[in-house]
């Protein structure tokens, strides 16, 4: 599917009333549209309205949020934002109306090809999945979003892959077969009504419970990541503050060094103690006593018959015995009989070895015995634990002293750190509970996903038996398992391909300061470095996003506010030249300061580029009206839009000029 934005219009909102037509004089959407808007012209509001209008989320807004979009001093009761899309060339228009008096939002959808005008947010089902708020956020965003892809606390990169490559479709197949099975079970005869109803209720409850717990897991996992980052930041801030003072702080620093030393010593001591424990004879003398008794009472050593009988057989063929004497018939006869005394069952080999080891390990030695070694390691461990505890207490006491000395901000940080540490522990515990595989089956509301899945399967199995859909149930399970595994494999394969593609492109974009993506684990992880510079991160984010956009079999527009602002000239040029080949429609809200480098590179890479310049009509911008070109200008009481490269390139307003 290809989605293009044909344009939008706005009235009565915080951003100036304006109509932006992205098709313009041609009949097709140009590859690149640059819309220059000085700061304060409503770029952020426009982005928010684009997402709100397309996603249908505004009906959930509270009155305050609705009214927050009203322009100051504007008496109009309604604000509207209309977005026109082209979906595979067919028009779709969605209108968001904000009623400032009532504090509510409502929608109107126009599908000229099918259904006409509907007084609600009703895009066709095939389009709807691409208009989810989370999905829209992948192609309508401000420049900072690209950087979020590399933020370890975010899951943006993983989400982008799932959404853009439509992996959710595999999940939908699983859901479809489940629904089909459920539908079939409902056709069961009256003979089983009571039991069946009860089982269905149990299955429905458990399925709902699973959804709740799975949601809680996602939330807890995100919280753990975010809180861990916050804890690290707070701890670093506290440490930095504590390290920049005099006297008490000097003592504190010394105490911290001592604590690091004791932590290291404790780790070594524990390692040595564990190593000594790996020798069982060290742990208790009774072990050696019992083993020696066992050894002393075992038969004399014998050879395992299965591996040793051949030795005697071959010896009987020799001319001489192993003692050097001639092998006479008498000697052969005797050896044949006596060899049986030395042969035994197959386990003899192990028994011999056990005897040997017991003998070796319990023999008196001039070096330390295992028991002595363990005893010494335990003594060192005890000392190391005491030292570490004492060092930690000193650090805590000095930290408290610093806080008591009046550093209120430090105190607040410490309180926040304690609070977040507790919250982190709670979330971790919740995750453990959800991931546990040993929860007892004694509650109607279990926490463990494994147990819930087991119960869902049990209820499903029983329903299958009653409704005689056992085979269908098995087939359903197989399809669901195949879909789950396919999703896993596809995600991992797509990730690997994307990493290769991105790294090849990054080699070009960041030729002078190369950066490589190592893996995608929720966010993009760079090879061999925690994070890059802001500009590097932004470049890597763009390259990833655009590669992912092209990887799915869909074309979406990329609408970006301030796409090149934090980049230096070289990167602007390289990103600018890549964009036209990476997406089907690129709409950028820019200001004049980010044009150098970026715009010429874009212009060199494609002929399909439109230049629009927009500003508010205020007394502050009245001077600009005299300099408007003769053609390509559309204006109303609130704004002016000018089409054309010359005006675009010469426009020198960075910030909106008020009255």
């Amino acid at each position, binding site marked *: 599917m290809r989605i293009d934005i044909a344009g939008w219009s706005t009235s009565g909102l915080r951003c100036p009333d304006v109509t932006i037509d992205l098709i313009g004089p041609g009949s097709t959407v140009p590859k690149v549209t640059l819309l220059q808007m000085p700061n304060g012209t409503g770029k952020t509001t426009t982005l928010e309205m684009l997402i709100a209008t397309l996603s249908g989320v505004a009906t959930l807004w509270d009155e305050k949020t609705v009214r927050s979009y009203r322009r100051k001093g504007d008496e109009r009761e309604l604000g509207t934002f209309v977005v026109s899309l082209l979906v595979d060339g067919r028009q779709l228009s969605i209108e968001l109306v904000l009623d400032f008096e009532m504090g509510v939002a409502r929608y109107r959808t126009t599908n000229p090809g099918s259904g006409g005008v509907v007084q609600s947010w009703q895009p066709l089902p095939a389009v709807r999945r691409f208009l989810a708020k989370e999905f829209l956020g992948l192609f309508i965003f401000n420049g900072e979003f690209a950087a979020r892809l590399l933020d370890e606390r975010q899951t943006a990169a993983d989400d982008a892959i799932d959404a853009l490559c439509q992996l959710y479709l595999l999940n939908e197949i699983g859901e479809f077969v489940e629904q089909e099975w459920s539908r079939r079970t409902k056709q069961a005869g009256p003979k089983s009504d009571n039991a069946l109803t009860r089982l269905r209720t149990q299955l429905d409850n458990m399925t709902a419970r699973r959804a709740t717990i799975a949601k809680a897991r996602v939330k807890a996992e995100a919280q753990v990541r975010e809180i861990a980052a916050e804890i690290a930041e707070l701890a670093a801030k506290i440490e930095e503050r504590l390290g920049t003072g005099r006297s008490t702080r000097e003592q504190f620093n010394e105490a911290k060094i001592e604590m690091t030393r004791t932590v290291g010593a*404790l*780790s070594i*001591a*524990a*390692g040595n*103690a*564990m*190593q000594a*424990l*790996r*020798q*069982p*004879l060290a*742990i*208790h003398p*009774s*072990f050696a006593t*019992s*083993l020696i*008794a*066992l*050894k002393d*009472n*075992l*038969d004399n050593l014998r050879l*395992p018959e299965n591996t040793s009988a051949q030795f005697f057989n071959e010896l009987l063929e020799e001319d001489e015995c192993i003692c050097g004497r001639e092998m006479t018939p008498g000697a052969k006869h005797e050896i044949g009989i006596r060899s049986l005394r030395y042969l035994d*069952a*197959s*386990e*003899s*080999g*192990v*028994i011999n*070895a*056990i005897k*040997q*080891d*017991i003998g070796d*390990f319990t023999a008196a030695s001039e070096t330390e015995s295992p028991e002595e070694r*363990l005893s010494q390691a*335990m003594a060192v*461990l*005890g000392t*190391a*634990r005491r030292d570490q505890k004492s060092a930690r207490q000193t650090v805590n006491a000095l930290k408290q002293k610093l806080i008591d000395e009046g550093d209120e901000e430090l105190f607040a940080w410490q309180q926040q750190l304690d609070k977040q540490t507790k919250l982190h522990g709670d979330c971790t515990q919740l995750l*453990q509970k959800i991931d*546990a*595989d*040993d929860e007892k089956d004694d509650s109607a509301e279990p926490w463990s996903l494994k147990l819930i899945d087991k119960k869902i399967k049990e209820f499903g199995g029983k329903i299958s038996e009653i409704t005689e859909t056992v085979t269908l149930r098995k087939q359903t399970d197989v399809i669901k398992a195949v879909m789950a595994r396919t999703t896993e494999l596809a995600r991992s394969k797509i990730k690997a391909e994307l990493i290769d593609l991105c790294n090849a492109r990054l080699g070009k974009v960041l030729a002078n300061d190369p950066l490589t993506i190592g893996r995608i684990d929720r966010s993009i992880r760079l090879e061999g470095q925690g994070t890059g510079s802001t500009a590097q991160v932004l470049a890597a984010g763009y390259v990833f996003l655009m590669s992912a956009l092209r990887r799915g079999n869909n074309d979406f527009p990329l609408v970006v506010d301030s796409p090149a602002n934090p980049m230096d000239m070289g990167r602007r040029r390289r990103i600018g030249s890549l964009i036209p080949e990476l997406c089907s429609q690129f709409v950028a809200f820019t200001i004049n300061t980010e044009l150098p480098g970026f715009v010429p590179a874009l212009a060199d890479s494609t002929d399909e580029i439109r230049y629009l310049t927009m500003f508010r009509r205020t007394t502050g911008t009245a001077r600009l009206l005299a300099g408007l070109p003769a053609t390509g200008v559309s204006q109303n009481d609130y704004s002016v839009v000018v089409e054309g490269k010359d005006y675009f390139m010469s426009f020198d307003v960075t910030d909106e000029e008020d009255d």
Partner: protein
Amino acid sequence: MAYFRLRTDAQSWFSEIADSPPFRTKFDIYYLCLIAGLASGRAIELTGTAHPASDLVEKFVEDYRPASRLIIGLLVTAELRKSGIDVTEKAQVRALFKRLVDSESPNSLTDQGMRRLNAYASGGYEYLAEQRDMKPYTAEEFIQGYTALIEGAVEKLAPI
């Protein structure tokens, strides 16, 4: 093929300390449970669904290979004690060896031998969990107290 198996509740009990040094593999946890089981003579079979467990490895891991035969020897002595067989009763001792030991097996144990070893690890976990007020939160503290727990287990064990 018989595997070393550790109860899932034992894995949960050790979850705060099992995945970081000084422990190198899950077998360390298994071993500490096993020694407690052998010392206390407590063996709880992992049959049925009462004690879910998961497979660890098939062979003794590198760290325990030097002591593997001593561990098998301790299993034999524990089983002798449990069966009331005196170590001097050679025929019965040999019969027991035959049931527990298999030189062809990658871990030198028969399936029954492995089942019994896992039973002692299972019983050992229960012994450790009973002796402590709470699950271990630091490896250092647990290790330091471990030998005392084993000492207690041996003391409580009635002589044959």
